[in-house]
């Protein structure tokens, strides 16, 4: 029974990672940049929904929509102001700018909402209790179920979006070759903006779900999940949508089991060690394509 409940908490955590990783991977795939500020957008999503629920007394579903709207706008503004002017710059310059944006968001949050952590009112509370025979009971928090379901819906939605819609195809074209996409009449800047918008909206969802499971909210809340989700995206093969999904889930499950069976202190170490081993065996992650350099 313990095993099952650890698996469920791992799946739930992994789903949050997967949703964040999807945002990372889409932005990486198209803009070829490591958006280190992505984790902090999660934090902003958490705060906005917190304010909407706890201060303004709005219902949970509405707070999620508000958070998504704010984060979408934030994502587009960040991209337009900080990243778009650096489109032709080196990836390192963009990386440092992303770090600057991350500092900015964290410290702005610190000024606006203060350093003390807020206790997040969970979106839905309660647990589903399943009894499996005598004295064996499995309790599944509703939040965990919701998280997994939302993650699967997002994954399916994104896959359909990128394969069926015009904008989705434009995204794939841009990620293959921006120059050629431009020549084919695709508005590259608009496509990148939309990608950031979607990624940031997903980050808001992830923020709400993350805070529902782990209800302490502070300005650095997004950092560690951001790094983990980035790891998950690389783990699955950065740039690949199913890869991010798979990587996120696996990472969550590994972390949950490592905490339960090996050591709480070393949970992160084990997660990162698995990443290292996977990259040594498959240098482009689980589902990534390894493209050798052309001579």
């Amino acid at each position, binding site marked *: 029974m313990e095993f099952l409940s650890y698996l469920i908490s791992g799946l739930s955590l992994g789903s949050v990672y997967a949703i964040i990783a999807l945002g990372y991977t889409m932005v990486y795939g198209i803009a070829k940049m490591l958006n280190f500020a992505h984790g902090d957008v999660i934090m902003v999503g958490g705060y906005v929904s917190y304010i909407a629920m706890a201060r303004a007394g709005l219902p949970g579903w509405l707070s999620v929509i508000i958070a998504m709207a704010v984060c979408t706008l934030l994502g587009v503004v960040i991209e337009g102001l900080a990243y778009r002017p650096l489109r032709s710059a080196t990836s*390192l*310059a963009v990386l440092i700018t992303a770090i600057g*944006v991350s500092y900015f968001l964290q*410290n702005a949050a610190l000024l606006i909402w203060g350093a003390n952590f807020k206790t997040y009112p969970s979106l839905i509370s309660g647990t589903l209790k399943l009894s499996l025979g005598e004295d064996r009971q499995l309790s599944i928090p509703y939040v965990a179920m919701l998280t997994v379901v939302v993650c699967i819906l997002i994954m399916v939605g994104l896959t359909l979006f990128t394969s069926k819609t015009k904008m989705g195809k434009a995204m794939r074209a841009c990620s293959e070759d921006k120059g050629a996409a431009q020549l084919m009449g695709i508005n590259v800047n608009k496509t990148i903006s939309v990608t950031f918008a979607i990624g940031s909206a997903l980050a808001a969802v992830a923020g709400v779900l993350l805070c529902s499971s782990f209800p302490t909210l502070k300005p650095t809340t997004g950092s560690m999940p951001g790094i983990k989700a980035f790891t998950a995206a690389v783990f699955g093969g*950065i740039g690949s949508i199913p890869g991010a999904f798979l990587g996120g889930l696996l990472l969550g499950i590994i972390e949950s089991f490592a905490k339960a069976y090996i050591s709480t*202190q*070393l949970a*992160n170490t084990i997660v990162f060690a698995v990443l290292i081993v996977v990259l040594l065996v498959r240098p482009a992650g689980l589902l990534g394509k390894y493209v050798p350099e052309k001579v």
Partner: protein
Amino acid sequence: MSSLKKSKLSASAVRDYFSFPLVTAAFFIITFMSSHDMLNKRMQGLLVPVCCYIVMALSLNLTVGIMGELSLGHAGFMSLGAFTGVVVSQSLIDSVPNDILRLVIAIVAGALIAAVGGFLIGLPVLRLRGDYLAIVTLAFGEIIMDIVNCLIVGHDKNGLHIIFNFKGEKTVADLNLAENGTAIIKGAQGAVGTKTIATFTAGFLIIMLTLFLVLSFIRSRTGRAVLAIRDNRIAAESMGVNVMKYKMIAFVLSTTLAGMAGALYGLNFNMISADKFNFNTSILVLVFVVLGGLGNMLGSIIAATVLYILPEALRGLADYRMLMYAIVLILVMLATNNPKVRNLFVKILPKRKSKEGAQ
């Protein structure tokens, strides 16, 4: 035409070697100011850390600027050096009473352990490329931090006692120290009760040593091989340059210097925890390197100094200082990397140059 390029190129050598007199002059001026009470206490306290971060920036510039690989876990090697230095220094307090000698031993030990760590981590890391390499260095940085956080170390007449607190249930009492034994590292609390023996002079000397080693390295057979790999790995290989070997040499040199900086840093505070050397510290040093210019050693020194002191100088702005720092960082990156802004500078600069030429 070619003579113009020639003078431009030797300018980079001149710039590099100009670092020596500049650092020396800065050292004497600051020492003079300090001995005449012209520095406040806060500035005094910054002197050694600034030296450490300058060495960190120089060493990371070797990895990022010269070798051309992004490392996001450099603070991990600083951590190895720091805790090794503290353990060595604290356990030698009785047998080597001379502070200077003990400091030297501690720094050498810190450098050695960081070198070994760099070699072991380099084996897997240097096989990877680009962003994948970067994420793995990040992973190792976090792993080092986690493991050091589990470390409980004490010293008594029987020697060193080391236990790993992996399950979170062990304490200093589990070291079973003999009488007069002292705990040096207390798990997540970090090193506590360290006798601070780091000095500004030592900081100055390790900067000079680092500069000398790094600059000589770049302008040697080995350094050229590393630069060649950075510029074009496939061409370097077909010239008979063993890519893995030379990347490893550069990486280990880089981590060794980081370990040196770490040992000095660790011995500058009477308490320090592993969390100090987290991802944010790695990023902080990376920002020094990028803003100072890749491969530009003088730039690293200046960027590290200015950016380390900047948040202190902005202290008047209280809570807004880190926000200001973030804005400054973004604006500088936009100003130096946006083609439009750069063209603007290019338009202004040659005019000034030609005026100078006419005079």
